């Protein structure tokens, strides 16, 4: 039997022994992590390490094969993205999850549409107004909110996805590479927004970033996934660019050595195969 972790008091989220495979590919072997209230946790890991898989499990998009999650001390088993959202967990996906055919404001309010009182009709004016306010607050100025998002630049699209997550009234926000498509200026605006949210102290965040400088600047703590498990868990104050880089380079060396060993073993097996006949 799994019991709630003892230190659950100030943890808004705990993930325990999560495993997830896709057919023959094991994305997550045994991942445990925790997130404190108001904390910004940076999640690192190589391409294909399983970061997005972990995020999609926490946000309710897919279910883990095994392992438990706890939200504010309660068992947390989201059946859908919508259910996770009502429990206060929201997400900005790596692929942004925008609908090309829908307009900026329709995308920002997708699945949280505002209706006119009790009628089924959407309150377009109110959604547009609120979308405008949210984008202004981030510092993104789009001339029009009723054009399909297909027409916007990569950075603008990403801003819309981030704005959708940030203004969702969530208290846990998962951000999967929120700066990937952005230029330097847009990226700085988003990091500033994250710093502002952190200062307010209400929102807890898990953020996947590739730039270690950004991680050290914006996050309180950093976790690194290697081989489907969390291989490093340190406050950013206690680590450095050199250490993070060292771990990755080390990991790369080990992987190369392993590959070479495997190659040698294969070659040996091949050489001995005819003899066995």
């Amino acid at each position, binding site marked *: 039997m799994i019991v709630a972790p003892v230190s659950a008091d100030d943890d808004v989220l705990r993930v325990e022994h999560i495993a997830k495979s896709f057919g023959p590919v094991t994305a997550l072997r045994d991942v445990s992590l925790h997130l404190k209230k108001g904390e910004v946790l940076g999640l690192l890991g190589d391409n294909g390490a399983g970061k997005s898989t972990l995020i999609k499990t926490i946000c309710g998009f897919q279910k883990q094969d095994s392992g438990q999650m706890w939200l504010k001390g309660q068992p947390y088993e989201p059946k859908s993205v919508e259910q996770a959202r009502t429990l206060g967990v929201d997400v900005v996906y790596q692929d942004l999850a925008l609908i090309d055919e829908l307009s900026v404001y329709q995308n920002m309010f*997708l699945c949280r549409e505002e209706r006119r009182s009790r009628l089924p009709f959407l309150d377009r004016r109110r959604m547009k107004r609120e979308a405008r306010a949210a984008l202004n607050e981030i510092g993104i100025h789009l001339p029009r909110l009723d054009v399909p998002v297909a027409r916007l630049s990569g950075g603008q699209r990403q801003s819309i996805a981030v704005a959708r997550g940030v203004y969702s009234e969530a208290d846990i926000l998962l951000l999967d590479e929120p700066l990937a498509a952005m230029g330097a200026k847009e990226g700085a605006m988003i990091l500033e927004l994250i710093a502002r949210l952190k200062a307010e102290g209400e929102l807890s965040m898990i953020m996947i970033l590739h730039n270690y400088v950004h991680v050290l600047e914006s996050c309180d703590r950093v976790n690194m996934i290697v081989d489907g498990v969390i291989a490093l868990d340190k406050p950013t104050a206690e680590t450095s660019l050199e250490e993070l880089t060292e771990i990755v380079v080390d990991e790369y060396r080990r992987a190369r050595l392993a590959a070479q060993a495997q190659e040698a073993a294969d070659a040996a097996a091949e050489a001995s195969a005819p003899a066995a006949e």
Partner: protein
Amino acid sequence: MSVSDGESPVTAPAGGQAHERKAPRAAVAPLTLIRHALTTREGSIIVITAALTVYFSLSLSVFFTTANFENLLPYFAPYAILAAGEVFLMINGEIDLSIGGCYLFAPLMFYEFHNGGIPLIPCTILALIVCMGIGVFNGFVTAVLGVNSFITTLGTLFTLEGLTLIVSHAEQLEMPGAQVVSNATGNHITSFASAFGAGTYSELFWALGIVLVLQVALTRTRWGLHTIAVGSNRIAAAEAGVKVRTVLIRNFVVCSTLAGFVGILEAVRSNSITPDPGAANSVLLDAIAAAVIGGTLLAGGSGTVVGAMIGALFLGVLQDGLAIKGVNADYLDFYLGVAILVAMLINRYVGRARRRSGLG
């Protein structure tokens, strides 16, 4: 007529369903108006249909008359309803061929329920519930089991057409409730019949009502938004929290139910249940043609119910006009086919111009 090549997306006048219309009404020049009409999603088919109507009106004295308008209605109204349902599925990136089956099967169910002693209105409701069940089945097999909807609904189409032949013994039946009754005030049709298909404008009212409701649902409700989202990018829609399967199943149900309803209207109008799969197949194809001509993409993500209705009107005007012109029956399908191709090409050209001009 140049369709605003030089304009940037930012300054181009708004048009299309998803757009604000803030242009000052009084200042709109006629040319702008025409351009505006052409650049809305329904614009080109409206212009094409209007041109066709003008042509027939000028070349045929009997064309633009009330009597002919009433003749034309059966060529138009049923297809507008069928196409309205099909538009929702086509926006989803799916297709429902089984509407031909529901169209054929629903009046027969109605007949059987009535034979069982059930009154007319409850018979209608029961027959429509059967159609809803067919929609749920189509939706389940497509959305949950993952079978391509073309295949799923092709199967349902043949199954229902076969069932209709089996149950009816391939014999024409008289539609209950549609007979002309005689009493002290003379011969007249029942109020059931006049409401459900036999009244001159009954089908037209149903068509206009259903098109209005579904167009509003498509552009101004969650259901419509989620339908577009599922058709445009199914993975992104699911990630955002759209209940993709529910949306798909619901649209299959709407489509089948409308098809059953049209089947009943047409059976009442003609006072007969004719188990003819060939006729049903041609009804089905005309309905899909109306939706496509009206500007709905087979690939999904975009479409309009009003456009599909105009597409149905285009087909109706064309068939009616050619019939009055006395075109040899052998040539009718040929002209129809060519006209559909031409209309589609114009649609495409204008559609590209619209996208270039930065409108939705």
